[in-house]
């Protein structure tokens, strides 16, 4: 039942938000809803042991073989927690941003959250598809309505790109439905399928395409930098912090266990593309002058590493991806907060026009440096744990013959990340002041609060990642059993 609340609270909260005309009141309301949801999510993760409470089943579309069923397992607990943590931080960090028609803005934000919660918990393929699209529609309106100058065409590209890929996925899901003996869309029936290798190899692409676009994996990434740049910052945070995780989540839940042979057969190709994407995106990030685009490309690189690790199919790799999904979400939201602060104070995001902010805003500088270290995954930051596990995973991979090459090339990403991140810090915060930056002041209370929250998460999970590992270790074991790597290699 509690899992249904995770979906219901933001849904109702969002619908109510549309009715609150007063700008201040709607902010307070949405913050309240998101904090309540965080409480529910924490409670679900820590205090609810009864499995009946963690799943929800209701009759729905019975004639089509689908039911309204949701479940919280390790993977969904983690991502629901990320979604629940991210929203209050986003709302606090953007507390002072002003929007026209704030009731619509915040209503759509909460509806997006409801969609995300649905995606992460659905255990019925058709229901999953419903939520998958439903998370997209409010984002379309958010980006087109409140974004930058070129928002309409950019968002349109993003929408059509992802929509095309997801309708193809729908065909795959319907095809799988007809293969199940009991004609059902439930996840268990899909997992029980044992398709032959040639079928798996094309079904893999039909399903994987939607997730590859969402992540995005090179070469399907072209929508991403533009969309991140043009969206309002609060939405960019949702997109990059949480929504891209839908892609990785999708692969873990709906690709690897269902078509393991297909994933094995195409694993090398996907890994090659992912790793090519890491290097490509990192090099572009080094050359960016716009802060938003720099972070967008850095995100492609980080996601690329996660995608590559998924197809290495090792215990430590999966474990690394799990906690890195959470950590990447936290870190990138931290980076966006800094960008938002800089843009609002100085009216520019260009590295070439900034400099010397450290003297003006020492608190901001300190906090940013910590977030930036996490972006390079320095030890003692949360990202280090995840990346270490992932590299370990690729290195020990039993399913690819090129594991050494892949590890070495992916390892370049750490160096390249250091180059663009440190370059960014240096250009923005140090060096001489100029006309634009000399009038800067330090950050306000709400921003301090949001950023310190993020820094706290970075340090806590950097030093003591055990809670996150515990949350997902059970799930990783069951995933490995389902994929059964040893069996794959023999065949």
């Amino acid at each position, binding site marked *: 039942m509690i899992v249904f609340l995770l979906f219901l609270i933001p849904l109702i909260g969002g619908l109510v938000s549309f009715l609150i005309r007063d700008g201040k009141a709607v902010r307070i309301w949405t913050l309240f809803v998101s904090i309540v949801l965080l409480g529910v999510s924490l409670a679900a993760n820590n205090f609810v042991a009864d499995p009946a409470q963690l799943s929800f089943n209701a009759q729905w579309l019975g004639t089509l073989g689908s039911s309204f069923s949701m479940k919280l397992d390790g993977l969904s607990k983690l991502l629901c927690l990320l979604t629940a943590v991210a929203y209050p931080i986003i709302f606090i960090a953007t507390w002072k941003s002003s929007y026209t028609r704030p009731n619509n803005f915040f209503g759509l934000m909460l509806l997006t959250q409801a969609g995300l919660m649905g995606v992460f918990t659905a255990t019925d393929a058709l229901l999953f598809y*419903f939520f998958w699209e439903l998370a997209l529609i409010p984002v379309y309106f958010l980006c087109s309505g409140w974004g930058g100058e070129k928002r309409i065409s950019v968002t349109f590209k993003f929408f059509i790109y992802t929509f095309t890929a997801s309708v193809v996925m729908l065909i795959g899901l319907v095809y799988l439905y007809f293969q199940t003996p009991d004609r059902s869309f439930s996840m268990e029936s899909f997992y029980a399928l044992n398709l032959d290798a040639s079928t798996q190899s094309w079904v893999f692409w039909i399903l994987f395409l939607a997730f590859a676009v969402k992540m995005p994996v090179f070469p399907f990434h072209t929508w991403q930098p533009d969309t991140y740049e043009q969206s309002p910052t609060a939405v960019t945070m949702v997109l990059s912090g949480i929504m891209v995780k839908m892609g990785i989540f999708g692969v873990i839940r709906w690709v690897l266990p269902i078509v393991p042979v297909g994933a094995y057969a195409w694993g090398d190709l996907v890994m090659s593309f992912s790793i090519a994407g890491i290097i490509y995106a990192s090099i572009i990030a080094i050359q960016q002058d716009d802060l938003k685009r720099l972070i967008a490309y850095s995100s492609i690189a980080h996601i690329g590493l996660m995608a590559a690790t998924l197809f290495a199919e090792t215990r430590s790799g999966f474990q690394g991806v799990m906690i890195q999904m959470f950590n990447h979400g936290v870190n990138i939201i931290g980076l966006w907060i800094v960008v938002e602060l800089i843009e609002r104070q100085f009216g520019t995001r260009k590295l070439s026009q900034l400099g010397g902010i450290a003297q003006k805003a020492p608190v901001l500088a300190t906090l940013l440096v910590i977030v930036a270290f996490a972006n390079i995954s320095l030890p003692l930051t949360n990202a280090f744990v995840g990346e270490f596990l992932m590299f370990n995973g690729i290195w020990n991979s039993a399913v690819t013959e090129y594991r050494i090459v892949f590890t070495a090339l992916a390892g370049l990403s750490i160096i390249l990340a250091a180059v663009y991140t440190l370059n960014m810090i240096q250009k923005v915060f140090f060096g001489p002041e100029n006309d634009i930056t000399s009038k800067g002041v330090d950050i306000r209370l709400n921003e301090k609060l949001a950023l310190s929250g993020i820094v706290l998460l970075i340090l806590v999970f950097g030093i003591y990642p055990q809670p996150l590992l515990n949350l997902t270790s059970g799930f990783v074991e069951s995933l490995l059993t389902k994929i059964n790597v040893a069996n794959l290699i023999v065949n």
Partner: protein
Amino acid sequence: MNALIFSALSGVIMMYSGFVFKSNKAIRTLAHILLALVIVANLMELKGIAIFEVDTKGMLYFDKFALLFMLIANFCTLAFFILSSKDMERVGRSYSEYFALLFFIIAGIAIASSFKSLLMLFLGIEIISIPLYILTGTDKLNLKSNEASLKYFLLGAFSTGLMLMGIALVYGATGSFITSEMVVNPQFEVLLVIGMMLLLFSMAFKVSAAPFHFWTPDVYDGAPTVFTSFMSTIVKAAGFIAFLRLFDDVFSGIRPEWKILVAFITAITLFIGNITAVFQQSVKRMLAYSSISQAGFMMLAVYALNSDAKEGLLLYAAAYSIATIGIFAVLIKMKDYTFDGFNGLARQQPLIAATLVVFLLSLAGIPLTAGFLSKFYMLKATINAGGILLAIFAVLMAAVSVYYYFRLIQSMYFKEGNPIAIDISTEFRFTLVALAGVTILLGLFPNLITHWLYF
């Protein structure tokens, strides 16, 4: 049968009501009441209560499928009456005759969706078509309307000729007009194949499937917009019901090869409809091409011919008709029919813009709307019939359709302007919201429609 007789009688009554009532309001009210009676008769018949019995000698067979479709069509017509009947006043002076012709079309729909004899199919299609030729030309002083009417009539007559020829050949091959009594004489199988092809082409013409669609954009664009709304929705859906019934009853067991032909027609209908719609600047023409592309999706039901296809086609008919009637009803109120004419509608009329978004999302097939589930049924039926490549092609084309449907959303929400010319009544608003509600409700619970087929 009762609904059929009631609607035919209603047509006659409306024809003479112009002599009795002088005010348009009285005529309108009378039409609403008569349609409500037709719906009641229809509903009673569906529940097994007949006011009177008529022996049709097996030529018509009112099964649940036919009755349910008639009910959907009548409900959509009622929605159309409530939303747009006031706008018919602006077309011309023969107000009561328009209603009479619409009632005759409803009678034709009843025949075409319940035929058991090919003669009845012909009769039904003709009773639908002839009033449509007239309605297309009702804007007498408008050259485009006259051209559309003549074009529609000439091409329509030609395709009716093909149909008659096809029926004759099928009769020659099987020795019967009644679909359930046909026995193929192997000696004359070639006649059956040719007859089937002629029937396929003429039905494809009636539902504007490519490559027989060329009349559609001109006719839909030239006809007065109120009537375009009716003919591109309910009439088109009725054509598909007849199409499905014909092929399901007569040809499903006989020839598997014709499926290739249907798949081909489906694919090019989807392709031409969607690709051409992308380039339109006028919303009315866009909706004309969108009706072709939606026809492509409905063709999937004719391709699949299984129980999913039947249920899905009913749902599709409802989803598509409701959404398109809603969009047309707003379009009629506009002073400018281009996409730019809709600029700023969300600022001026937030409620109406929101309902249009629901309709457009439904047409594009986004989940939570009836449009998604009806497309889903079609895809499911197609994949079940083995046409997975056709299904993939169809969804890719559905993704293309997002382009032109969302363009309208962009105009309404993200651009500035002052679009509405005619003031909008509370009743109109209420009906639109109700239709949007039905669209979402059917998107969540399609069983609200499909369970009538079985219970």
